[in-house]
C-alpha cells in the first residue's frame, strides 16, 4: 500500500472542499472495495476523504411516491427496509445476492455503485490491463475464460460491472443525485452512470473527482411482477456469471456490460407482443462474445420474464 493522507469529512461541504483541494483524493465509504484495491496498489489515492460519518444514510419517501435512499445507507439496511422489500423486492433481492453479510453491513449505496470491475486481470497488478494502466493492453482478451462483456465492449476492454444492486436500480429507472464543490447538483439515470469503455476504459464514470453521490432516487415501482435471478458458480459470496432483473415490462441484464444493461430490444419486443424467448433473443442479436454466455443470458432472461408474468418474486 502507498502512503496516503487521511481526512475525515465533518460535513458535505467539507468533503467537497477537501476533494477540490486534492485532485488525487478518493471518497471512502465502507471501504470494502477501495481498501482492497489500495492494498493491491491498484488504487493509489494520495488522500482519502472519509465520508462514512456524513448524515446521508436516510431512506425517505419522495413527493412523487418513490423513495430516496441516502448514499451512505448500508446495503444491509436498504435490503431489509420494509418499504423496499414490499415495493421494490427486486432491489432487496439483488442486494442480498451480493457479497456476504459482513460486506453488506459495511458496503454503502454510493460505494456499491462506484465499485470497480472484478476482472481478474484488473485485480492483478502484474498483468497488462488498459483499465488499470492505459495502453498496457487487455489481458482478458485471449486470456483464461471469465465473464466478459456481451454488450458495449471495445477492443480495449471487455470488463463487466460487478454490482448486482445497480442492475435492479436500472430496471427501476433509479437516478443518482450528486453534488460538486461548486455547489452544482446533478441527476443521472443509474443505467448510464457508467461509461462504456471505448478508448478510455480507465474512466469508469463521468463523475468529476470532486463529485459526491448524495442519494439514489427510486420512482414509484412499475406495475407487474418483479424478479431477480443471479447465476453463479457457488451459492453465495461470488459475483454473477449473469443476472437479470425484471420489473413489470422492463428488463435489465447484469454482468454482461460495463454498466447495468437495460435490454431495450427485449422490452420493445415484449411491447410488440413477442414471446419471452423471442424477446430475449432480440437483445442478443447485438451481443458479441462466447456462444455459451449468450445462451445462458437468453435462457435466463426468458425464464425470468415468464416468471414475472406469473407475478413471481424469486
Amino acid at each position: 500500500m502507498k502512503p496516503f493522507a487521511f481526512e475525515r469529512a465533518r460535513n458535505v461541504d467539507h468533503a467537497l472542499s477537501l476533494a477540490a483541494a486534492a485532485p488525487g483524493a478518493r471518497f471512502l465509504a465502507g471501504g470494502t472495495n477501495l481498501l482492497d484495491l489500495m492494498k493491491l496498489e491498484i488504487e493509489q489515492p494520495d488522500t482519502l476523504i472519509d465520508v462514512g460519518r456524513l448524515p446521508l444514510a436516510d431512506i425517505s419517501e419522495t413527493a412523487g411516491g418513490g423513495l430516496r435512499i441516502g448514499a451512505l445507507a448500508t446495503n444491509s439496511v436498504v435490503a431489509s427496509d420494509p418499504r423496499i422489500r414490499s415495493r421494490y423486492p427486486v432491489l432487496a433481492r439483488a442486494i442480498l445476492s451480493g457479497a456476504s453479510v459482513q460486506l453488506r453491513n459495511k458496503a454503502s449505496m454510493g460505494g456499491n455503485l462506484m465499485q470497480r470491475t472484478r476482472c481478474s486481470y484488473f485485480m492483478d497488478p502484474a498483468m497488462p490491463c488498459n483499465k488499470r494502466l492505459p495502453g498496457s493492453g487487455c489481458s482478458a482478451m485471449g486470456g483464461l475464460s471469465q465473464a466478459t462483456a456481451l454488450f458495449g465492449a471495445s477492443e480495449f476492454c471487455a470488463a463487466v460491472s460487478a454490482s448486482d444492486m445497480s442492475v435492479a436500480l436500472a430496471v427501476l429507472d433509479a437516478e443518482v443525485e450528486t453534488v460538486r464543490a461548486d455547489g452544482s447538483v446533478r441527476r443521472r439515470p443509474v443505467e448510464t452512470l457508467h461509461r462504456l469503455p471505448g478508448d478510455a476504459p480507465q474512466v469508469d464514470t463521468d463523475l468529476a473527482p470532486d463529485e459526491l453521490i448524495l442519494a439514489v432516487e427510486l420512482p414509484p415501482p412499475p406495475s407487474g411482477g418483479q424478479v431477480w435471478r443471479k447465476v453463479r458458480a457457488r451459492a453465495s459470496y461470488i459475483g454473477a456469471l449473469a443476472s437479470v432483473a425484471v420489473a413489470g415490462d422492463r428488463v435489465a441484464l447484469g454482468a454482461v456490460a460495463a454498466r447495468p444493461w437495460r435490454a431495450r430490444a427485449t422490452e420493445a419486443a415484449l411491447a410488440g407482443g413477442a414471446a419471452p424467448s423471442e424477446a430475449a433473443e432480440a437483445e442478443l442479436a447485438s451481443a458479441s462474445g462466447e456462444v455459451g454466455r449468450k445462451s445462458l443470458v437468453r435462457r435466463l432472461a426468458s425464464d425470468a420474464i415468464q416468471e414475472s408474468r406469473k407475478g413471481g418474486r424469486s
Partner: protein
Amino acid sequence: MSTVRDWAAPNPITENRSGLIGKPVDRYEGRLKVTGTAPYAFEVETPSTPLYGHIVSATIPRGRIAAIDVSQAASAAGVVLAWSHLDVPVQAQRGAKLNPRSQRGSNPALGSDRVEHYGQSVAFILADTPENARAAESRIRITYEASDADLDFGSFIDSAGPAPGEEDARIGDFEAGYSASEVTVDATWFSPLQNHAQMEPCATTAWWEGDKVVVHTSIQMVKGGQHALAETLGIPSDRVHLLTRYIGGGFGGKGQSYDDLTLAALAARESGRPVRVAYTRRQMFQATIHRPAVQMRVRLGADKTGRLNAMALEAVTHCARNAPFVEHAANFARNLYAAPHRLTGHRLVRLDIPHAGAMRAPGEAPGMLSLECAMDELADRLGMDPIALRIRNEPEVDPDNAKPFSVRQLVRCMQEGAQQFGWDRRNPTPGAVRDGRWYVGMGMATAIRGNFLLPAKAGLRLTGDGLATLTQGMTDIGTGTYTILAQITGETLGLPLDQVRVELGDSNMPPAPGSGGQFGAATAGSAAFETGMVMRRRLAELAAGDPRSPLYGEDPMLMDFANGNIVLGNRSESLAALASRAGPDGVYVEGSISPAADARDWSQHTYGAQFAEVGVDSVTGEVRLRRMFGVFAAGRILNAKLAKSQITGGMIWGVGAALTESNAVDPRYGSFLHQDLGGYLAPVHADIVNLDAVLLDEADDKANPMGIKGVGELGICGSGAAIANAVYNACGVRLRDYPLTPDKVLAALEAKGL
C-alpha cells in the same frame, strides 16, 4: 519391535473405563481461536519491538534476473534493509545437508539469479512496519531475461514421461482381459489444479538468542522445518528452536517450510531484532505448493453380471521442472475392487510453474473422481444398481497383493448408507425427477484411504499438583490433536481431563512426524498412549518401592489407575501425592511407538460410502447440493465430535472439487488466474446444506495398540464422485471435466437439446 499380536491385548484405551475415548469433547483451543486470542506464528510476543519483512515475487515464469537494483527500496521510509540474490547473506546450496540425518536439506531464499516459476521470491525488504516494507516494493528495479516456459499442461499431456522410479502396476493381462469383456467403459476425466487455500498464510516470527535462532512458524512438520532452516543456515539443528503452536490450516501445503522462515531468520540475524514475515494472499497461491491437475483414463471390462474382468486407471499429472512430485491418482484403485486383469500407473509432465505437492488426500482426492464415476457408468450400462455392482466386485483379500484385510467394512458402509440416505427412493432413469425448474438426482460413491503409523515419541510429566503434562514435537493444524492427546493421556492414567495438559509444536520436545497423510492421530496418539503406559509402570514401581505409600510392597503389575488415584483393592493413593514425593519436578517419562514388525502383513485402509442428492437448474446449469450423507469406518473413534468434523470437512472438500474449485495457469504469463479467496472458489456455507456423516463402530487391532485409524482425509475420497454421479442421475449428462461449473453443465444440457 512389537508385533500386532502385542497390540491385541486389552489396555486402558480399549477398555475405556472412564469413557474419555470417543467422548465428543470440545477442542480445548476452540475458544481461543474464535476469540482471536490464540497467538499464531505472526502474532507471538517478541522479546523486543519487531521489524517486518516483505517478499517481492517474480513476474515471469522462467528466465534470469539480468539486473536488479534494491538501493532505492533500501533508502525508502522506514526500510532497514533490502536484499536481492546479489546481497542476501550466504546460505547453503539447495538440497545440501551438513547432517546426513536431516529430514530436509537446505532451502535457500533468493539463492540465485534464476527464475523457475512465476511468484518465486526475488527480493526482500525489511522495515519498521509491514506497510513501509510493502510500499518500498515499487522502488525495486528488476530487468528479467525471460526464457521459453512450458506452462500449459494440456498441450504436453501426450508427451508425458514416466514418473521417476516408478513402473506401471500390472496384474494379469489387462489388454486381453479388457478386449474379452462383454461390457466395457472407456472414458477420461480431468481434475484441475487446486490450491490449499488455508486461512492463515505462511508466516514466521524469528529472533536470535546468542548463536541460537528461535522461530515461531506455521508448519505441519516440526523436525522438517527445524532441519531445513538449520541446513539452510549451515548450523547444527540444535541451534534452531522451532515452535508452531497454532496453525490456521495446513492441508499438506505447510508440510514444508517456505522463504518466510528462511528470510525471517536471516533478517533477524542481520538486524539484531525480532522479525516477522508473512506471505501475502497472492503468494499463498503463487509461491507455495498446489495439487496438480490430473488427467485420468479409466477402462473397465465386465461380464453381463457385472463381475469385473479388467480394470485400468492411467493418470497423467504435472509437477515443477526441478521438483519432482507425483499425484498418485491411480494407487487407491489397486486395493478397491477385485478384477483379475489390472493396470494402474502414472505419467508426469514437467512444467515451469510453482511446485506441485501434497494436498489433503493426495492421490485419492482426484483419483476417485474418475474410477468411482466409471463404476457408475458401468452400472448404468449393465442396468445394475451401483451399490450392487460394487458388492459384486468386493474382494475377499486385497486384490493388489492378496493380503488379508485388517478389517474392511466397505459393504456395510454402503448398505447402512443406502438405508439412512433413502437410496431406494432414487429413480435410476436420469432426468426423471423434477422439482420446479430443477432436475433432481442422487448419486453414490465409495471411499478408501490408506492408514499409516510412523515412529513417534512423547514425553509425560506428572507433577505434585496432580497435573499430567504431555509434551510432543507434534502439530495441531486445526484438527483437534491437542484435545485427543489429552483424552488418550487422561484415559491411560485414569485422570480427568482437567488434570491433563498437552504441549505441542516445539522442536525441543520428543519428536513426532507431524500432521499429514491422516497419520497424525494414530501416530502421535499411539506414542502418547505408550508414554502413558510407561508412566503407569513407573508410578506403580514408585508406589511399590515407597514405604510412605499405602501400596508399599505390593506387586506393581496388579495396580490400577482411576479417578486420579493409583489403586489396589481397597487401598489407594492420589497420583499427586505420589508425584510430589518423587521430587520437585515430579515424575517424567518418555515413550515411543514404531510400526509393528508384521504390520505390512495386512491390508489396512479406512473406508466409506458417500451419498449425494443434487439439483441441476434446467435453465442455467447451476448445480446445487441438496443433501449429502456418508457412512465411514475408520477404526476406534477418539472423539466423536472432532472425527465427524474431520469427515464432514473432508466431504465438503469433495463438494468443492466436484463443483467449484479450480485454478488455471495463464499460458501467456505463467501466473494463476485466481490468487485470492474471492476468486478461488472453495464452498461457502450456503453451498453446504444438510450434510451429515456417521462412523461405524470399529476397532482395527492391526493398526496400533488403540485400534484407531485416521479420519482426516477419508471424507474427501469419493465425495466429489458421488456428486458427479448425482448430476448424471439428475439430468442425464456425464461431465468428466471437473469442476462441474454452470457453463459446462449448460453446454451439455444444450447439446442434449434440453
